[in-house]
């Protein structure tokens, strides 16, 4: 080779490298085209010795496998599986020497009479050996047609020179294709996630149509990269049980739509079905030789069914590849890899579908391990993307469901609250409402009911059906609504077991159950959760699905509702018990207050009579020594009378009645006499403590208090109560004073002051409450129920006046003042 030729060869080699690799779409065919043009050839082929070849044997065993071809007619002619024993190209591979064939149709080995040669009048062939980077042997061929120059030794050297670059270029092209595919798929998937992105907001989740479009792009990329007729992706059907049904979401070959669904395990015997069932990749080198290779395939892929792939597939392939009858077809290579979404919660693989390729249009025709690994990478990309999409969808759906749940529980709580306000709360109404909530928050659960526990019979019974379940039972003319389920251990009824164990139960194949199928034949799936609180169970919530799947949150949501219903049930019992107790207590109270009133009335007669007789005895007594015990007796009678009066007032107020007043003008003189009488009685009652009860006469004069408009008897009751308290809570040897006066605001008042137990801050209002007694008062007087001041306050309010407790001063003097309203000191007419 002269210098000029060397320069030309170098230029061409450079062109070969650049055109092979620098093309936007690097391809082996492009490389062969470049070689063929340089060699002024009609076409070019690249071969690889099959891995099982025995080159040293005689005759050599094995085949030459077409990796790629290029013909300037654009025809597809792959010359598949040339036996190493009888072809010039095979000879080159076996002997590792180049060879020039003058007339391929005469010296073409097994293919010499191939119609393709004749049709295109192919004559000359030049074949040079080469060694691929993985160490396998191969051959590079170029062909010339009739009329072209025969290949020369110069051509041979030229081709040998280029052949040195081919293994490197071959690998580089494939690496580039692979890298391009992975990065392009990554870009498409990433872009898709952000496609609906708005500034500062999370991208909106794609809908299924958009997802299919993205997957279609991926399939197109896979198809382009492997230059295969079909690239398809089948992914899980969200409506089916995990791992049981896979649908075609995208494909480059629309005719594959007729196999759009794979059901597992039914379709295990099919190629794609096998991948889905076993979650392992599958590769068939040439479907046209499926029958020939069956024995080894059967061992490699147990469970695969033998079927006539050969003839049918070849015919279909010819049509798809537009190959003419008689032409060799390229190998009908098939590969499929499982699509995983990641690692599932049990640490196993999370199968989501399958990605498959079929029938390469150009070389390399075989889907080798490298291709299947590459497809696996793409499958992983798709799987993770799909899983993210699904997870986000499920999360959004679940979030929405829980939001809905919270809202519905609020509505349900309000309903229950209202129901419990009724005299007789209807638990059935609560159940009906709860079953509506179930339909709202647990999609697809359509035939639902509530079973409750009958503790007496130790059975579960249907307490409430949702309307759809009732209609279904009516339609089926079923008596199952009246069924009862004895609560016994090891029951065949799941409901009983759930009731005993307190744990939810789920069944996805109710149709195949002999127990459940006859009751609701259309029901596919069931969930049963207990209704109860903590360890106490009251019943069951039964949910049934006919077509749709059980949503991921269904069991948790149903469990929550079960607990809520448990609380309602417990509350209903408590409320019913409470209402009964309240009714009883009210009846009892009514009876007691009535009795108090009766006793008070009955007491008055003998007391009044006794008092009259006492007064007579007093008026008839001449000596103080005789009168004194009578005074004591009179004081005791008056006290008794006041107790009877207190009972009467208490019973009136307990009835919610207003006190009946018989007011009159009580002038200062009458008031003063009344006060002295009461003071005398109080003094006698407190002789032991030597307390003096004094009426400050100054206030009881017409120019101070002209008169007060009040019920005389009630006024006496009030003053008497105040004096009674003063006696109890005053120190020994002190003075209790009864005053009358006009306040700074011009009101008339009567007041009692004493020195003793102090009123502290905050107690001046509390003391007006019924049954309130100060802690110290309880210690120094065991009797008394905290009624006295409350009654005084009630009486004053019924007079339109006011009870004022003036906090004790530093001298421990307390003043309790009865302040009468302005109307009551209008000048006496």
């Amino acid at each position: 080779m002269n210098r000029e030729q060397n320069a030309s060869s170098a230029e061409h080699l450079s062109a070969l490298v650049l055109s092979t690799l620098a093309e936007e779409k690097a391809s082996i065919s492009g490389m062969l085209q470049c070689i063929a043009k340089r060699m002024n050839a009609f076409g070019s082929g690249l071969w690889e010795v099959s891995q099982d070849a025995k080159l040293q044997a005689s005759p050599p065993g094995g085949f030459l496998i077409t990796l790629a071809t290029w013909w300037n007619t654009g025809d597809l002619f792959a010359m598949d599986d040339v036996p190493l024993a009888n072809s010039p190209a095979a000879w080159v591979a076996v002997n590792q020497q180049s060879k020039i064939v003058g007339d391929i149709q005469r010296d073409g080995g097994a293919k010499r009479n191939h119609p393709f040669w004749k049709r295109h009048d192919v004559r000359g062939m030049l074949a040079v050996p080469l060694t691929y980077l993985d160490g396998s042997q191969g051959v590079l061929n170029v062909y010339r047609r009739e009329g072209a120059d025969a290949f020369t030794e110069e051509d041979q050297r030229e081709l040998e020179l280029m052949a040195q670059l081919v293994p490197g270029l071959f690998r580089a092209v494939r690496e580039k294709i692979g890298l391009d595919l992975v990065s392009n798929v990554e870009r498409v998937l990433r872009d898709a996630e952000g496609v609906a992105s708005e500034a500062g907001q999370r991208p909106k989740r794609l809908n299924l149509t958009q997802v299919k479009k993205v997957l279609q792009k991926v399939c197109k990329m896979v198809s382009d990269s492997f230059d295969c007729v079909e690239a398809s992706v089948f992914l899980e059907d969200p409506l089916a049980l995990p791992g049981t049904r896979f649908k075609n979401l995208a494909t480059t070959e629309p005719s594959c739509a007729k196999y759009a669904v794979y059901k597992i395990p039914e379709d295990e015997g099919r190629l794609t079905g096998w991948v889905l069932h076993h979650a392992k990749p599958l590769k068939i080198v040439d479907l046209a030789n499926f029958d020939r290779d069956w024995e080894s395939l059967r061992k490699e892929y147990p469970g695969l069914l033998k079927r006539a792939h050969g003839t049918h597939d070849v015919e279909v392939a010819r049509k798809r590849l537009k190959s003419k009858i008689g032409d060799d077809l390229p190998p009908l290579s098939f590969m499929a890899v499982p699509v995983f979404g990641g690692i599932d919660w049990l640490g196993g693989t999370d199968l989501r579908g399958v990605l498959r390729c079929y029938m390469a249009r150009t070389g390399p025709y075989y889907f080798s391990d490298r291709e299947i690994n590459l497809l696996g990478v793409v499958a992983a990309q798709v799987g993770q993307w799909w899983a993210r999409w699904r997870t986000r969808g499920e999360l959004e759906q679940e979030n929405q469901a829980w939001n809905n749940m919270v809202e519905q529980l609020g509505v349900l709580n309000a309903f229950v609250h209202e129901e419990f306000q009724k005299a007789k709360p209807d638990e059935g109404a609560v159940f009906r409402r709860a079953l509506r909530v179930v339909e709202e928050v647990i999609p697809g659960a359509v035939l639902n009911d509530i079973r409750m526990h009958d503790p007496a019979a130790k059975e579960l019974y249907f307490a409430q059906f949702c309307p759809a379940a009732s209609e279904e039972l009516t339609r089926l003319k079923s008596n199952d609504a009246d069924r009862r389920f004895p609560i016994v251990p090891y029951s065949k009824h799941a409901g009983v077991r759930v009731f005993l164990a307190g744990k939810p139960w789920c069944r996805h194949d109710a149709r195949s159950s002999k127990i459940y199928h006859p009751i609701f034949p259309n029901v596919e799936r069931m969930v049963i959760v207990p209704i109860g609180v903590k360890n106490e169970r009251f019943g069951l919530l039964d949910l049934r699905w006919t077509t749709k799947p059980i949503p991921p949150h269904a069991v948790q949501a149903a469990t929550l509702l079960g607990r809520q219903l448990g609380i309602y049930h417990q509350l209903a019992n408590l409320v019913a018990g409470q209402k009964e107790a309240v009714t009883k207590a009210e009846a009892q109270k009514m009876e007691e207050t009535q009795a108090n009133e009766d006793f008070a009335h009955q007491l008055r007669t003998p007391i009044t009579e006794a008092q009259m007789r006492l007064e007579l005895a007093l008026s008839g007594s001449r000596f103080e020594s005789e009168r004194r015990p009578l005074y004591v007796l009179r004081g005791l009678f008056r006290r008794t009378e006041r107790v009877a009066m207190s009972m009467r007032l208490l019973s009136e107020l307990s009835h919610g009645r207003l006190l009946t007043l018989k007011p009159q003008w009580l002038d200062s003189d009458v008031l003063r006499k009344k006060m002295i009488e009461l003071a005398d009685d109080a003094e006698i009652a407190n002789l032991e403590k030597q307390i003096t009860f004094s009426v400050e006469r100054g206030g009881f004069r017409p120019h101070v208090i002209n008169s007060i408009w009040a019920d005389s008897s009630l006024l006496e009751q009030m003053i008497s109560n105040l004096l009674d308290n003063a006696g109890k809570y005053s120190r020994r040897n002190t003075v209790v004073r009864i005053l009358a006066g006009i306040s700074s605001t011009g009101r008339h008042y009567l007041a009692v002051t004493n020195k003793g137990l102090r009123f502290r801050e905050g107690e001046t209002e509390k003391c007006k409450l019924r049954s309130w007694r100060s802690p110290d008062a309880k210690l120094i007087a065991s009797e008394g129920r905290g009624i006295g001041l409350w009654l005084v306050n009630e009486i004053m309010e019924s007079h339109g006046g006011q009870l004022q407790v003036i906090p004790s001063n530093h001298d421990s003097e307390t003043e309790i003042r009865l302040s009468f309203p302005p109307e009551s000191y209008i000048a006496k007419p």
Partner: protein
Amino acid sequence: MRILLLEDLPSFADALQQSLEARQELRPVGIERIATEYEFRRRLPELARESFQVAIFDVMVRWCSLEELDTPEAQELPPEVVEERDGIKKWRSGVRCRRLFAKALQEIGASPVPCVFYSVLDLEDLGEELNGDTPLIVKQGELEPLVQEIARLTGRR
């Protein structure tokens, strides 16, 4: 006859004195009246050493008088009194004092003193709280049932 009486009504002590002295076999009568639980506790060692022929306990006696409440000791309430003051338990000072009295006698090796509860409360109210060996006389208009019980307990009838 020496009688220990836990009772806050002074007139009752006078009436009882008169009723007992009306019976010759019971004379002479000396009544030691204690008006509050606090006083009873305070004087318990001294009371245990005295030779009473009978002790009468009103069940619902107040904790202390207003004057006693001024002392810091009276404000140190035993837990059971706090519970009664706060309305958690019913007021049963007499039952407590009866128990304390029996214990105090035992501690000093004195002979047991016959006791009787005298209360407006009846057996239905107090059944569970009474000692089995302590009779209950319900307060009524007349003192005769109590007088008879005292006579029985002291063997003077």
